[in-house]
């Protein structure tokens, strides 16, 4: 039907009447409500009325305004209105204690409701409110924080209480937009919005520019350490989860909740889970200086995620705040930072592999870990799991609360919330379960690497056989079949090499995954191919590993050829080191071919030792085991009279000693897809995805989305270590069946993550790389293949930013013409084909690691420093 006819049907008088009404309300804003909207409005209004009944202080007009503001999202509207009613009550009570200050602040804030509704008229603004992409929420958080600088300075504590109470209404409803430190950002939201009312379109676009700019600035802010130290002696920019955790108790500003606050929230607190205390604690920990006894009744999951994601950023901008305005108004902040600094120092001393160290070590001297890009933190286990408990517990609470409000109002709910519905009683506390599991045997991912034909598969095949993972009958079969094609020495390797091609050619081509257990450890074995052409597969496997066995061939000439420039021994060792593997067992294999010669063994140990420590492995984390994979000597036991000169551990004993690494349980769920196929596990229809959980936890029934693409699916079943399970946590190699997901949405290298915490997608980012032993120098425009986990994508190095002294972290040369071998440098990288999911190293250690390869050689390894553009 043409538009003309539509218009003819309209009742002009009615429309004008309507318009008049609204113009009155919004002070002549250009505004037009369509008929459809009107209808929706009426529907929504009646719905809301039926739910909230007659509450004092909520007029019809209020409901309409709010409905329009949330664009007919009835549920949010109800939340807002109820909170507003609370607020109104609170104001009455409040008037006596803090009259003056409230008057100063309140008009500004309480206006913000209707004003920002005016804002919502522009479709642009609406979009930005309702959009849930990571980009908005990420960029959004920066300005709000920087703005808090002002508010935190000017407002006194009393006003802040009321401020927060009011803004908490906004907060609970505007979940999508909210940011790291909810209290802080909330108080600034009204300001931000009222400013954008002035000219909505223009200011929004400029706003986003500004945000991006300041976002960059704040993330760069952590780099010029020296400069900041000079200006503010108290302050150190280093920041991490740890500092925040430690800082929380030392925050002098955390007062017990005021009487007023208790009065208001008493009722709500009764309803809440006992974990509430922990949660409020966490809010304090996110690093705002003007905290008060305030409890969120409904912390949105987004808040929590963003909290976790940008703790670093928040404390960086906090540092900016101090750096720019070291006014006497802020004595408490200074003392707090003193405390923080001390705790940082303490934590550095406590563990030199700690989180802080990672960024720090490029600046500080650390000869052992010269090239270390990613160190695993080993000590903060207990702390982090405690911390993450909060994160897990709160979303449950959230969903309960939502359910309590109005179950019948949910039909219009977003798809995301209806899809994943786990009853809270059925929800598993994964962290608790995880603790139980690791108490038994700690699960580790073990990758086996080495030059082609070093005997990796044979050694591991034999080990599996000796440990009883391969049944006798199958082994016999392998022996028969392999001798049939004249390759009887490959019988053990056939345990792992299963494809026809691999068996015929006698080399491993793709990662084989097996599980086995030793006395104290539960291993997921990843048998990597040694041939140089299959290094992408090897990277895919090694990126899933925590620890490694490096197999070298002791045969005269073979060790040397594997160790020389074209051999893979060195390249593999460097790769796994850059992928964050720190513990290594070197299996000196095939010693039977040199008559178990001690001299040969010592020679190899010496040569390798020199190289490995240069590559960044610590001496005390490397162990050498003489063995023979084919004969099976010194794998789990030694025959008498063969290795008399050796008195150490056997291979199994040695790998049993691997130390458990820290898992990123507290971070949002991330799974990097390394494989997928049609059909579920068992008889369930769907798609099966395999990969390693890089961080966070997942359980059956949860909803996840696939990035890039954003398509969602529900986890129907899970297999961890060849056994089906109800849940899985960071570090596990899992297979999971997803339903409601189109297989075309999946790609190798996609990331699965929760809908509320999507991983950013980028095609342009800043990285710090260590250049390997390259034949041609890296220049601008250097085409590379970028590897991240199982993903490989063509990319270009588009800008060489600077060369860095890897020991001191000083910039040696800006805008270099080229990067010669073994330099450390900052570069900009752009993907050539399509954007990929990627996170900055500071946000997620696993997803922030990249390898750059060209022409079959690894040219550089590095970490993502900053993401320069989101989306494509």
């Amino acid at each position: 039907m043409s538009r003309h006819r539509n218009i003819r049907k309209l009742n002009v008088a009615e429309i004008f009447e309507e318009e008049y009404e609204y113009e009155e309300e919004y002070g002549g804003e250009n505004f037009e409500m369509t008929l459809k909207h009107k209808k929706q409005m009426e529907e929504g209004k009646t719905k809301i009325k039926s739910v909230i009944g007659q509450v004092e202080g909520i007029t019809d007009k209020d409901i309409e305004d709010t409905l329009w503001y949330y664009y007919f999202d009835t549920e949010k509207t109800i939340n807002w209105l109820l909170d507003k009613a609370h607020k109104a009550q609170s104001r009455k009570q409040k008037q006596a204690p803090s009259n003056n200050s409230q008057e100063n602040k309140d008009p500004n804030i309480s206006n913000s409701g209707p004003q920002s509704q005016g804002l919502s008229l522009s479709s642009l603004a609406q979009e930005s409110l309702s959009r849930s992409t990571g980009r908005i929420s990420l960029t959004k958080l920066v300005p709000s924080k920087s703005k808090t600088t002002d508010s935190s300075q000017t407002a006194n504590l009393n006003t802040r209480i009321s401020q927060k109470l009011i803004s908490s209404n906004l907060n609970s409803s505007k979940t999508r937009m909210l940011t790291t430190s909810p209290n802080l950002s909330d108080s600034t939201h009204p300001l931000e919005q009222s400013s954008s009312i002035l000219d909505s379109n223009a200011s929004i676009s400029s706003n986003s520019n500004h945000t991006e700019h300041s976002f960059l600035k704040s993330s760069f802010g952590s780099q010029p350490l020296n400069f900041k130290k000079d200006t503010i002696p108290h302050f150190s920019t280093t920041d991490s989860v740890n500092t925040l955790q430690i800082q929380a108790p030392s925050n002098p500003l955390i007062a017990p909740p005021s009487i007023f606050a208790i009065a208001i929230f008493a009722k709500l607190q009764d309803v809440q889970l006992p974990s509430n205390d922990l949660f409020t604690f966490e809010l304090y920990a996110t690093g705002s200086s003007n905290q008060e006894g305030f409890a969120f009744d409904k912390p949105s999951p987004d808040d929590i995620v963003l909290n976790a994601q940008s703790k670093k950023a928040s404390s960086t901008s906090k540092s900016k705040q101090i750096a720019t305005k070291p006014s006497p108004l802020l004595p408490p902040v200074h003392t707090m930072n003193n405390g923080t600094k001390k705790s940082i120092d303490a934590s550095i001393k406590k563990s030199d592999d700690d989180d802080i160290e990672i960024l720090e070590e490029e600046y500080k001297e650390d000869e052992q870990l010269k090239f270390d890009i990613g160190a695993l933190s080993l000590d903060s286990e207990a702390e982090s799991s405690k911390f993450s408990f909060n994160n897990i517990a709160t979303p449950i609470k959230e969903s309960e609360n939502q359910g309590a409000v109005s179950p019948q109002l949910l039909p219009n709910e977003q798809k995301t919330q209806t899809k994943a519905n786990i009853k809270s009683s059925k929800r598993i506390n994964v962290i608790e379960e995880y603790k139980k599991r690791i108490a038994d045997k700690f699960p580790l991912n073990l990758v086996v690497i080495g030059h082609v034909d070093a005997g990796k598969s044979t050694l591991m095949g034999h080990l599996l056989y000796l440990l009883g993972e391969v049944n006798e009958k199958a082994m016999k079969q392998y022996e028969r079949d392999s001798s049939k094609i004249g390759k009887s020495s490959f019988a053990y390797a056939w345990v792992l090499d299963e494809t026809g091609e691999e068996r015929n050619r006698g080399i491993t081509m793709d990662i084989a995954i097996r599980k086995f257990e030793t006395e104290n450890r539960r291993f997921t074995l990843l048998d990597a191919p040694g041939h140089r052409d299959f290094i992408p597969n090897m990277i895919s496997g090694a990126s899933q590993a925590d620890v490694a066995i490096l197999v070298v061939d002791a045969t005269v000439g073979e060790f040397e050829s594997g160790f020389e420039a074209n051999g893979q021994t060195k390249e593999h060792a460097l790769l796994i080191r850059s992928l964050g593997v720190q513990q290594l067992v070197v299996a000196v294999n095939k010693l039977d071919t040199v008559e178990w010669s001690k001299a040969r063994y010592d020679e190899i140990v010496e040569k390798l030792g020199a190289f490995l420590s240069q590559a960044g492995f610590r001496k005390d984390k490397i162990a050498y085991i003489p063995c023979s994979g084919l004969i099976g000597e010194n794998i789990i036991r030694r025959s008498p009279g063969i290795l008399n000169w050796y008195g150490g551990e056997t291979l199994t004993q040695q790998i049993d000693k691997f130390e458990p690494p820290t898992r990123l349980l507290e971070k949002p769920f991330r799974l990097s897809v390394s494989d997928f196929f049609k059909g579920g596990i068992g008889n369930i229809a769907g798609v099966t995805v395999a990969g390693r959980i890089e961080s966070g936890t997942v359980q059956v029934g949860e909803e996840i989305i696939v990035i890039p693409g954003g398509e969602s699916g529900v986890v129907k079943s899970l297999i961890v270590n060849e056994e089906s399970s109800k849940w899985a946590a960071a570090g596990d190699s899992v297979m999971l069946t997803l339903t409601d997901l189109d297989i075309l949405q999946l790609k190798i290298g996609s990331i699965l993550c929760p809908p509320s915490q999507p991983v950013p997608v980028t095609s342009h980012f800043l990285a710090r790389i260590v250049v390997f032993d390259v034949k041609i120098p890296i220049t601008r425009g250097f085409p590379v293949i970028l590897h991240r986990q199982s993903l490989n994508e063509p990319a270009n190095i588009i800008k060489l930013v600077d060369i860095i002294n890897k020991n001191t972290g000083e910039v040696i040369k800006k805008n270099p013409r080229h990067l010669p071998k073994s330099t450390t440098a900052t570069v900009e990288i752009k993907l050539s084909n399509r954007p990929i999911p990627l996170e900055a190293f500071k946000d997620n250690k696993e997803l922030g690691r990249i390898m750059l390869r060209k022409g079959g050689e690894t040219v550089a390894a590095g970490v993502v420093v900053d993401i320069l553009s989101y989306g494509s």
Partner: protein
Amino acid sequence: MKRVKKRIEKDRSGFVELYPEELEDMWHVYNLISVGDNLKATTIRRVQNESSTGSVESQRIRLTLTITVEDIDFDPQGGLLRIKGRNIVENKYVKMGMYHTIDLELNRNFTLFKAEWDIIALERIEEACDITKQADVAAVVLQEGLANVCLVTQHMTIVRQRIEHPIPRKRKGFVTNYEKGLQKFYDQVLQAILRHVNFEIIKVVILASPGFVKDQLREYIFAEAVKQDIRSLLENKSKFILIHCSSGHKHSLQEVLQDPAVQSQLTDTKFAREIVALDKFFKMLNDDPDRAFYGWDHVRKAEERGAIGTLLLSDELFRSADIPTRKKYINLVESVRSIGGKVLIFSSLHVSGEQLNQLTGVAAILNFPLPDIELEEDENNQIATEDNS
């Protein structure tokens, strides 16, 4: 391309009439035409007639128009060249100054008028019309699950089809999925080859991959060819060559074309020369950084000292819309040639050209080292930073 007529005056103004025959010619034309030139070609225009009663009648007519070029648009995939401009020769249907967009067509003459035919443009015509220098190669670079079917001509590399087919990994006791996936993938590649490779033109079909994928693919192709009796494949079996490369991405085409086996098949083709030169440049940059420079400033300084042995330029620089920039580079070319240096103009549609474009589009290998160029730069920078601070 065929040159039909050429008339260039002493003041270097004049016209050339050309007859494009294949896709690549469009690329040449795209590089020849610059804003401000006049173009005469046949085209189709929709003409509206208003009758006395006011009803409008529109019809499409083929007519010859001459326009002054304002905008050029090229799509390498389809070989489409669209040139927008204003009419300068009035006729019955089109008034002076009216806009028209000409879609240049294959096998139809067109005439290009330039106020000044410079050496680069003239060389381009020579090159385009030289049929002896033509070498068409089809290359399939692949790895498990990813294949790029490309067509490589003298001046262009066109990815005809990019095949992505997820192949399930092997898992314990369950390899059928993997093998099935692989077969399907090979089948897709085979279909792509049949669709995009015209064996009458193509001299060589390169299959390149890491590992054994290429061998398996070849086996599969000829097994299928026998099974389904695909004549074109069986007759051209000798045209298939296998080359090792490091990945299935388009980048690795450069490795492939650098391979001695390919080089011997395609001796003295332009892209082979380009790749060798670029490779030499990078080697020089590593071994003796004072003899390899890139970027206009550095290269110009080297040129002033007469040190340039080989000059590498991207054709993108000559497509520049503003004449001074184009002149600047033409002078550079002439000056290098006058001292006996070699000049290579890279096609930015090749992988090597893409890489050179990233390197500012201009690079030079010097005959003797000039360490002071970089020092000078550093000093300037230092002065600049001191000023700033």
